[in-house]
């Protein structure tokens, strides 16, 4: 009886150990891919059309979902914000509330979450399928480095696209908020814009938002690239990798957001 219990406990501990080792190995492999992507980035800039093509697929093709989402998020923010602010007689501050919420938090975070769902999954599936159909092996056998040719241009495309998409998200969100607050609810237009202008700081709000979006861009793109590269070369493997991209990217973005916000509020 005791032997059975000891066996079960040792199997449990060994299982936990194996999982931990696998996680640490993946973390190391991901970090290695990130370093290699930086080392082999020269080609992405020397032949910038490769990076431009990926910017089109990851950035431009994500525009619709970003703009539509931003519009609705801005409108909901204005509705909810007005509902609360009017209780305290400060409904004119609605413009500030919408702008700060978007520029500081919702712009970078929601853009990163949407980016992970739209572009991240596409990157993982594409690279996973390239691996499954031996396209990456073919490249290797042609003496063409897949990290320089496939990973680096997609990495820089993600890093460049994310801040632009986040800025667009904030701008369209503010427009959505304006349309609800001013023409629909009747908040004074001058107060809406002037309070926003007076209270949104370039250094503390806009630059910090841009920093966040760049960090999220690095994280989301690297996770998508690594999951694609590490996917087992089967249909099931690619499907699991795509799911992992969304889950890990979303959790990483939310975790990083907390860490970055803490630093930005302290500094």
């Amino acid at each position, binding site marked *: 009886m005791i032997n059975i219990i000891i066996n079960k406990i040792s199997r449990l501990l060994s299982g936990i150990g194996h999982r931990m080792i696998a996680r640490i190995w993946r973390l190391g492999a991901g970090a290695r891919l990130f370093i290699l992507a930086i080392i082999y980035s020269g080609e992405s800039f020397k032949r910038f059309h490769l990076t431009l093509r990926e910017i089109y697929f990851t950035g431009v093709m994500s525009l619709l979902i970003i703009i539509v989402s931003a519009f609705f998020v801005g409108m909901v923010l204005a509705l909810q914000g007005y509902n609360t602010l009017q209780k305290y007689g400060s409904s004119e501050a609605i413009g500030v509330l919408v702008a700060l919420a978007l520029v500081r938090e919702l712009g970078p975070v929601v853009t990163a979450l949407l980016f992970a769902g739209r572009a991240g999954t596409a990157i993982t599936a594409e690279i996973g*399928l390239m691996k499954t*159909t*031996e*396209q990456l*092996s*073919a490249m*290797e*056998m*042609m*003496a*063409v*480095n897949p990290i320089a*040719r496939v990973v680096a241009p997609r990495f820089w495309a993600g890093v460049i696209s994310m801040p632009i998409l986040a800025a667009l998200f904030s701008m369209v969100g503010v427009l959505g908020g304006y349309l609800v607050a001013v023409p629909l609810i009747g908040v004074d237009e001058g107060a809406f814009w002037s309070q926003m202008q007076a209270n949104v700081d370039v250094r503390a709000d806009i630059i910090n938002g841009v920093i966040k979006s760049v960090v999220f861009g690095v994280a989301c793109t690297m996770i998508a690239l690594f999951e694609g590269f590490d996917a087992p070369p089967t249909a099931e493997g690619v499907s699991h990798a795509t799911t992992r991209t969304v889950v890990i990217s979303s959790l990483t973005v939310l975790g990083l957001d907390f860490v970055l916000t803490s630093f930005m509020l302290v500094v």
Partner: protein
Amino acid sequence: MTSNIVEIDNLSFGYNGRLLHKGINMVFPKGKVVAIMGGSGSGKTTLLRLIGGQIKPTKGEVRVDGHVVHEQTRDGIYQLRRTMGMLFQHGALFTDLSVFDNVAFPMRELTDLPESMIRDLVLLKLNAVGLRGAHKFMPTELSGGMARRVALARAVALDPNIIMYDEPFAGLDPISMGVICGLIRSLNDALGATSIIVSHDVKETFLIADYVYFVANGEVTAEGTPEDLMQSTLPFVHQFVHGEKDGPVPFHYAAPDYRAQLLG
């Protein structure tokens, strides 16, 4: 100077404690078409990957043009690979590039040739495989046989010294099979290259190969010219060449007693 462009010397390779190859010796003379044959899972494709330096041997070595592959730096391996072309089992065409761009890919990536010359060379290569007229197609618009021919044009784009073929006849209709078969031989002779074919299609391989190695249980079990092997009395070779259901490779995978399993 050796007349063998590729030499495999006492090569062993394994993973997870299991040896896939146990002390294999092979030579691939310049200008010849040499086939490696054997059942599924016998490690034939792995041998190609070892020659290409994509994996390292556990023991022994592979020499390409006198250079020990696994001792090369990354740049050294890439330098060796520039002298090789490889046709993958399903073509491995880049699905986001057209037929033209697929064949032009190694030229654009590895040479500084002007675009006008690349255009002429691509059309030449596509003409050699009979698909000049399909240069604007995307890979998804091609049949299996056509995709294999485009991949062949891409594999010989830079006139390699060694051309490796991984199951070039698998899944093709008889016409496409005949076309690929003829192309392998004619391209090899026209380029003065050495071809290494990994296959289990006896008829087509024997038609074009100068020499054949049989691999089973991690070892070279037989070797010789196709004529020699057709006459071979070795049980495994006889079963393989004549496609017999039962023999040294049993029809039934190892299992417990049939009756006991059904009743138990």
